[in-house]
Each structure stands twice: as structure tokens, then as C-alpha cells.
């Protein structure tokens, strides 16, 4: 196994472990804020995975920018750049994720104001009664 293959496998193992940790946090932690932190970790793991799907080993590496639309620059682009489309997808997902996380944070603050706690077990016990 070459060094690059080892690093590649190592990265995927680390990503899957982080995924497992974030799922554990979402399911098992009783604190709502911890759950949200775990959710953001899950989102980040998925984003990094998608970036890795578009990655490939090339040397020398150049940024995925096409200076002009001609045969030479296109062939140079294909030889030196990684696939830029997953990065574009991830940028969009990051922006959407920010919106969702902000909404979740606002709702959590409101939940704390109303219940005085963020422990979901305690909140479930009290229910939605006024």
C-alpha cells in the first residue's frame, strides 16, 4: 500500500468514525444544545465526504479555475485540477446549513426561555401544556 492510498483509507475511516460520534450525540445526549452541535458535526462530515468524492490525486495541482475556453487550457485544467462541482455543491449546502442552524439556535433560546431547561427528558415530561 502506497502512502497516498494509506492516507486516503485513513481519512475515510476518520470520517466514518466522526459520523458515528455525531450520530451518537444526536441520539444519546439529552441536552438540546449538544444535540444541535452533533447535528452540525454530522453536516460537516457529510460536506467533507462530498468534497473528497470530487478529489483526486494529481501532481502538480492547480486551483480549479478555467482561465479561457480553449483546447490547451482545457486539457491543462483536466490534468491539474480536482473536480470543482462537489465544492460548489458543498458551498451551497454550507449556506443552507447555516440558515437551518441559526433557526435551530433561535428556537433553542426560545425553548430555554419558556421551559428554563434544555434537557429534552425534562421537557418531554412537562409536555406542551401551558
Amino acid at each position: 500500500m502506497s502512502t497516498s492510498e494509506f492516507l486516503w483509507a485513513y481519512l475515510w475511516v476518520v470520517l466514518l468514525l466522526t459520523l458515528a460520534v455525531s450520530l451518537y450525540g444526536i441520539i444519546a445526549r439529552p441536552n438540546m444544545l449538544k444535540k444541535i452541535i452533533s447535528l452540525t458535526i454530522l453536516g460537516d462530515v457529510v460536506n467533507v465526504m462530498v468534497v473528497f468524492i470530487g478529489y483526486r490525486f494529481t501532481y502538480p495541482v492547480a486551483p480549479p479555475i478555467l482561465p479561457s475556453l480553449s483546447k490547451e487550457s482545457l486539457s491543462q485544467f483536466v490534468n491539474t485540477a480536482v473536480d470543482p462541482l462537489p465544492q460548489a455543491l458543498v458551498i451551497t449546502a454550507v449556506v443552507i446549513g447555516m440558515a437551518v442552524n441559526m433557526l435551530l439556535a433561535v428556537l433553542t433560546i426560545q425553548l430555554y426561555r419558556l421551559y428554563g431547561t434544555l434537557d429534552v427528558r425534562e421537557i418531554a415530561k412537562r409536555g406542551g401544556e401551558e
Partner: protein
Amino acid sequence: MDVVGLTPVIPVIFAFALPLTSIIVKGNRKIIQAYALLGTGLTLISALKLFELVYSSEKPLIYTFGGWTAPIGIIYEVDRTGALIALVTAALMFLIAIYNYRYLEHEEGLEWYYTLYLGLEAGLIGVLLTGDAFNLFVMIEVTSIAAYALVAFYRGRKDAVHAALKYAFIGAIGTTMYFLALGILYGAFGTVNFADLSAKVHGLSFPVTGSPVGNIVIASGVALALATWAFLIKAAIVPNHFWLPEAHPAAPSPISAVLSGLVVNVGVYALIRFLYTVYGGELTPGLAKIVGTLGTVVIALGAVSALFGALMMNAQRDVKKLIAYSTIMHMGYLFMAVGLGTELGLQAALFHIINHAIAKALLFLVAGMFIHAVGSRDINDLAGLGRQMPTATLGLAMATLSLVGIPPFNVFFSKVLLFDALMEKSLALAMVIVVSSVTALVAYMRVFYKIWLGKPVKNVTLKEPVSMGLVVLLLSMAVIVIGLAAPMVLQNYIEPAVAQTVNYKLYIQTALEYALRLKLP
């Protein structure tokens, strides 16, 4: 501008311009209401025009954003199924916008409410028109974020905030899984365009994106499993249903109508796109096995949801919670029909989506009229109101009779179609429809009996707001008219739509014509 591109853009523009407009008009409620009616009304006109165009054209319509065609840019590709559901969506959003004004007369923040409302409409229409799996993700998120925030509209109430947080949390997990599915699909096929994906799955050639990489059977299996799970969460199918009975009742009643009638359809529609357009028709044995397994799982979960929803309806005291469980039941029917993978199954699903959207919206709006009058959601507090509110009671009778499937009303005909479609598979599945309908009938009759003949808790004189009554009457009319004209609707609208959606080759061909115009050096 093309009407395909215009339809989702109108509500987006109206939504973004509303906070500024509200500052200019100093929060005048009448102007804001008129503005919202204008926004939803223009969208309705545009959706109607789109509907006419799509039904008069043989091929799906395409709009290319910025002139970039299929595999390079994002395109909107509208077939008849999408246009039909979009028309129903736009019409219901317009009618519910009329209803909103009196329902929210005592609430602050009408401008923010309508900003989210128009955003929700933009997301819904975007989901129905898009021809790109990644744009579908974005539009699902636009719909969802607006829906989460609207559930928490009564931000001082414990149940609303709690339900919204639960809904948002579980929804965010679902869309994250869908995003991962997209990454895997892109890794295997090199594209996220529906037409291009479908071409690759069926072994047809498509320019620019090359050929699939690696084992597409495993990649498709993982991606489909993740995506379907996300759609099951969005459509609240057991075991992912637990957010719905809290979130839908906690929202203001018009929003409950939108959520139960329209937003849950997003999951069903997205699954239809994946199972019928991308993985439809003839497949290689490996892929056919995966799609077959997925169909079986979806049918089983749908059947469980239908029975579970019907049973839980009988255990509720909160009238809106009861209706919310009925939504779980009807979503179960839809997933059973979609999982069949047959043309008849898709016809039944499409007709039921439309009928359920109208009848369920009507039922929530009627419940909203009673709740608006009394200020409580408990069935016992609503007792005896029926005689003082004749329009609402009429609407309640229509909606409940329709939803359980009593003959001249619309849902009866789609239930018959569902029964026929499931009968082709097995008798036991078809009986699920009958058993759950009877169980639901018992629950509805209890509500109706209480409201019509029950003893009033306290003597109050009630008035029905005219605008709310008008919307309820219109929707009641729609329930009867679609029911009486069911054979005509089926023949003229449902069958052509399904014939076009099942024909994935036409879908690919239409996108391909645009893609071939690309000139690369």
C-alpha cells in the same frame, strides 16, 4: 421570460420585497394582505398558464437558467404531473391567503408571516418544476425552513416552540442524508441532472458527463436508501412520523392546512421522480433488484402508516391532532401506491395527492374556523358549535365524508383507484385501505357528533367571518365537482400526466435536444 422560469420566481421576489414594503407602508395590515394576495394571485395565474402550455405540448417544457443547458447548468423540466400538482398548490395557497387575514386578526407580525408564506410557496413550486436533483435539495430546504419557522409562529407557546424544534431537527437530519445521497450519485454517475442520471442508469449516452464510474449498483443502492429515508421523514411515514402530530397542530390553522395538504407531498413527489423518472422502466438485473426491494419496503412502511394513523385518530382529544394523524394515514396510502411501480399505481397516487390536498386543506380550515371562534383545540370545548356556524359545519361534513371515501365526493374515486392498483399486488394490501377508512370514519363521526349535537360548554353567540366562509364554500364546491367529474378528470388530466411521467425516454430526449446545442471547443 419563460413561464416555466417565471412561476417560482414570482413568490421569491414578493417574499424578499415584503419586509421593505412593510417598512414603507408602516405595517398597514390591509396593504400587506393585498400585497400577499397579489403575490399568490400572480403565481396562480402563472401556474395556470404553465398548466395550459404543458398540457398542450407533447414534450415536457424546459427552462435553462442563464442559457446553460442540461448537464452543465441547472434546468427546470416540467412534465404534466409537476404542472398539475403545481396548479393545485398555487390555487390552494391563494385561497388560504384569503383565509389568513381574519384568522390572524389578533396577531402581530403579519409581514413576517407572509414573507415565510410566500417563501414556502416558492419552495413548493420549485420542487415540482425542477429537473435537477441538487436543485431539488435546495428547494426542499427552502420549503422546510419556511415551514419550521411558521410552525413556531406562536413563539410564546411552549407546544409551538417545542414542536418546531423537533420538526426542524429531524428535518435537518433528513436533508443532510439526502445531500450525502447526492454526493454518492455524483461520484458514480458524474451528474446530478435527472435526465442525465436517467440516461446513465438506462445505459443511454448523454454528452459532456462521460460514462459512470465504479459499481453503479452499490452506489445506486446506498444513494436510493438514503434519499428515500429523507423523503420518508419529509412525508412522515412510520417510523419517521413522530414530529408531524406535534408540528401540524401547533401551527396556525391556515399553516396546518398548507403543511398537511401540500408540504408533505414534497416527499411523495420527490420519490416519484426518483422511482419513475430516474429508475423507471427497463433496468439491468442488479438495479431492478434494488428498486424492487426498495418498492417492497416503501409499500410495507406505507401500509403500517395507514393502519397506525387510522388507529391513533381514535385516541385524540385535540381536533387538530386527530386531523394530523389522518395525514399520516393518507401519506401511507400514497407511499403504498408509489411503491408499486406500476402505471395504475402512479395514476392512483397522483389523483390521491390532488384530492387529499384539497380535502385536507378544507378540513383544517374548517377546524380553524371553530378554533378561531372558541380559542381551544379540545373537541369537548367545540361541542355544540355546529348549529351556530352553518358554513363551517357544511365544510366539516364535506371534508370528513370525502376523506373517509363516501361516494359522490372526490377522495372516493382515488380510493377506488388505489384499491384497484393494490389489488394487482395482493388482496391484503387492498384491505388495508378499507380497514383504515372504516377506522377513520369512526373517529370523524365522533368529532361530527360532538360539534353538531353536543351540549355547548357555555352559551356564546358566534359569527362566521365572510372571507373564511367563502374559502370554505369554494373548497367544498371543489370537493363535490371533482368527485362528480372524476371520470372526466381522470381521462383528461391524470392519465395523460402519468403516461408522460412513465415515459422516461421522452424526458431524457427533451433534455438531450438542449444539451446537444452545447458547443465545446
